[in-house]
């Protein structure tokens, strides 16, 4: 019995291995590393649902992209970097066109590999800020905006557009003690030194996410003028409830886009009024794009989203949709340029470098106002779309600012240095020599 089971197992694995290339001809493999399990599932799941539902919608409505169906396979990582290696190798062996690491930790691991294996890495709104430099990071993309852009926009917003206003003030930087949370520190340190405000980094360890009493005690003692949060998963909800408990003024509490997450705010409701987050997308359930998703995917019962909890209307779900929109636009661009429906990795890389999401395209997609227009190029792999401040009014987020933009003059030299350091540490490193912009 044991033997027959083993033989059956082996033969199925073998058969699947043999059958794989046959399928590969008919679909565009755009897999995703998901995490619907583990401590970060709360923020992960709506994004995964959004990403998945847009691809499903394209398959249902248009028969895929350019007539070729999209295979949007998920590989569960649980935000665990160990699974990242496994998922990366698996999708590579299956002929994936792109890798979406979905964690700054996995990004760091996979980034050097993608440069050798020549696979585009798509890290929308996360990853390593220096990936902006397309000449160095030939295969990595982090549109529409990077963490350094985000940090700069937040500082611009809280200083009312002039960083000199922050002089002598104290800004606490409450962040996850993880590569992701530390990412904006170099920029914030530079800004603090240049403009004379005091930066107080407060790390939150992975084990302390749900109980941040020590961190908030420190905040109470130090009385910072602003708390800037770089949190993820269970940490955001923990911080928001602690802030309410310690009566920290909500209008001085600002988060990066992952903090624009309705379920976390619903925990505190009215008491969270005034809380702001920088978001590069704005939820609009009535947009044509969202209505199409609703019609073809959600109402057709093909979505995994939690309909009862208002997930469809939420910012993270719609952010996930937009992440897939950008990728799908890249595929479209690549198909047009290459003149073939079945593009390869190199062609997709060209497509990503030539994404042009201007107002007209957004209008055509039915996503006007959901995100800011941007475009990428071979030297600019981020695109630098602007973002808005959204404010919690007790029941929902409202746009409370004009489109903000990052301070390029400060960020670009930092990016250049970080990219050069990265390439130097990873010699021999393949640069994009063809890019002359």
């Amino acid at each position, binding site marked *: 019995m044991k033997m027959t089971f083993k033989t059956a*197992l082996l033969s*199925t*694995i073998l*058969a*699947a*291995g043999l059958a794989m290339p046959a399928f590969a001809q008919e679909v565009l493999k755009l897999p995703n590393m*998901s995490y*619907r*399990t583990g401590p970060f599932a709360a923020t992960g799941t709506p994004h995964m649902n959004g990403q998945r539902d847009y691809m499903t919608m394209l398959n249902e409505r248009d028969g895929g992209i350019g007539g070729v169906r999209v295979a949007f*396979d*998920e*590989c*569960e990582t*649980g935000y665990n*970097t*160990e699974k990242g*290696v*496994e998922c990366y*190798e*698996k999708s*590579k*062996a299956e002929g994936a066109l792109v890798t979406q690491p979905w964690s*700054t*930790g996995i990004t*760091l*691991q996979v980034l*050097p*590999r993608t*440069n*050798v294996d020549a696979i585009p890495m798509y890290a929308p709104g996360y990853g*390593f800020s220096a990936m902006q430099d397309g000449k160095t990071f030939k295969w990595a993309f982090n549109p529409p905006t990077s963490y350094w852009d985000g940090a700069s926009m937040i500082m611009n917003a809280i200083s009312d557009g002039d960083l000199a206003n922050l002089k002598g003030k104290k800004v606490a930087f409450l962040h996850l*003690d*993880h*590569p992701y949370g*530390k*990412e904006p*520190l*170099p920029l914030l340190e530079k800004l603090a030194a240049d403009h004379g405000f005091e930066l107080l980094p407060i*790390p939150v*360890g*992975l084990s302390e996410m749900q109980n941040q009493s020590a961190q908030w005690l420190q905040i109470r003692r130090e009385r910072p003028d602003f708390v800037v949060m770089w949190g993820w998963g269970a940490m955001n909800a923990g911080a928001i409830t602690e802030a309410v408990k310690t009566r920290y003024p909500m209008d001085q509490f600002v988060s990066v886009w992952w903090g624009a997450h309705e379920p976390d705010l619903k925990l505190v409701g009215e008491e969270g009024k005034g809380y702001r987050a920088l978001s590069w997308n704005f939820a609009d359930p009535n947009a044509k794009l969202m209505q199409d998703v609703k019609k073809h995917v959600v109402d057709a019962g093909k979505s*995994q989203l939690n309909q009862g909890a208002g997930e469809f209307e939420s910012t993270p779900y719609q952010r996930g949709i937009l992440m897939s929109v950008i990728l799908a636009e890249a595929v479209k661009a690549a198909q047009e340029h290459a003149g073939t429906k079945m593009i390869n990795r190199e062609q997709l890389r060209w497509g990503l470098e030539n994404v042009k999401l201007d107002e007209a395209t957004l209008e055509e997609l039915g996503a006007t106002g959901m995100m800011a227009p941007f475009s990428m190029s071979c030297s600019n792999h981020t695109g630098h779309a602007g973002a808005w401040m959204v404010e919690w009014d007790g029941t929902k987020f409202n746009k409370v600012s004009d489109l903000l933009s990052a301070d390029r003059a400060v960020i670009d030299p930092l990016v250049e240095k*970080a990219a050069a350091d990265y390439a130097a*540490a*990873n*010699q*021999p490193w393949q640069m994009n020599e063809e890019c002359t912009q």
Partner: protein
Amino acid sequence: MFYRIAGQYKTSYGADYALFPIKQDAWLLALILVFAFVVFPLTASDFMFRALLIPVLIYALAALGLNILTGYAGQLSLGTGAFMGVGAYACYKLITIFPEMNIIGAIVLSGFFSAAAGVAFGLPSLRIKGFYLAIATLAAQFFLLWLFQKWAWLYNYNASGAIQVPNTQLFGVTITGAQAPVLAQYFFVLITVCILTAFAINITRGRIGRTWKAVRDMDIAAELVGINLMKAKLSAFFVSSYIVGIAGALFVFLWRGAAEADLFDIQLSFRVLFIAIIGGLGSILGNYLGALLIVALPVIIGTVPAAVGLPISSAMVEHLNTMIIGALIIGFLILEPHGLARLWALMREKLIIWPFPH
């Protein structure tokens, strides 16, 4: 039938204590080595190497290190993850401070750093035993992890707080970093693991190993027959942490490619401890069996639904996986509390007398 010992006479004590008292054991080992050195390299894919073979070898090595301490010398430790971290960070610092250094040299030396850390945190073992010692080593786990996070010098002030493995070469072949061909990495890990396993087998069978076992079985009696407890315990901590440190260096340099401090948290310690316990404490073979069960089986189970075409979401596969592995662990422990190695030993004994029951 396969294990017939008829005709294998032992005419001396030496023959009775030989490494392979039965010829078939040697043949079996040779067969496994042929698979490891010839068959897998010829047939395996990148995925098999990176997701199955290399991690199984590295985890087995870490469990081997822990097994020397816990299984042979009887000192319970929960600091394995942190000691692996010491090896990894030491190797990283050595390679970045001395870029011209040979990777073998760096790995061999990095083991000494974790051995030193192991001995330092092993000092309480002279006074306390059992669970109390486990708590003392837990302190090592938390303290070292905190150090990895806060001491920026360790990760060269990297903005992400992570260490990134540079490309290094050995005899003209890239061994570590993204440029390294997976086959070279596999052979490097395999040879390192083979050498350390041979070393562990010999040391545990010899004088030192016997003093460890005496200490494990009853330390007062061991002291009465003239064993220096301090030397025995600290040497166990030294050898164990050395192997664990090398496993840590391999873990980051030959497999992961990058690591942040959180990688070496208590979960990793538990994982290695589970491998050692389920494989069998006080056995060398057990570490490999345990690593196969804990590291390789989830990967294999994860590929099954997709392979047979079941439409199950990947998150569900992950949940099922946790349940199946959990049930298997409980099942094996009920079936054989002394671990998989003991299970194999029983099977082997039965095979030797098979088909006659007596």
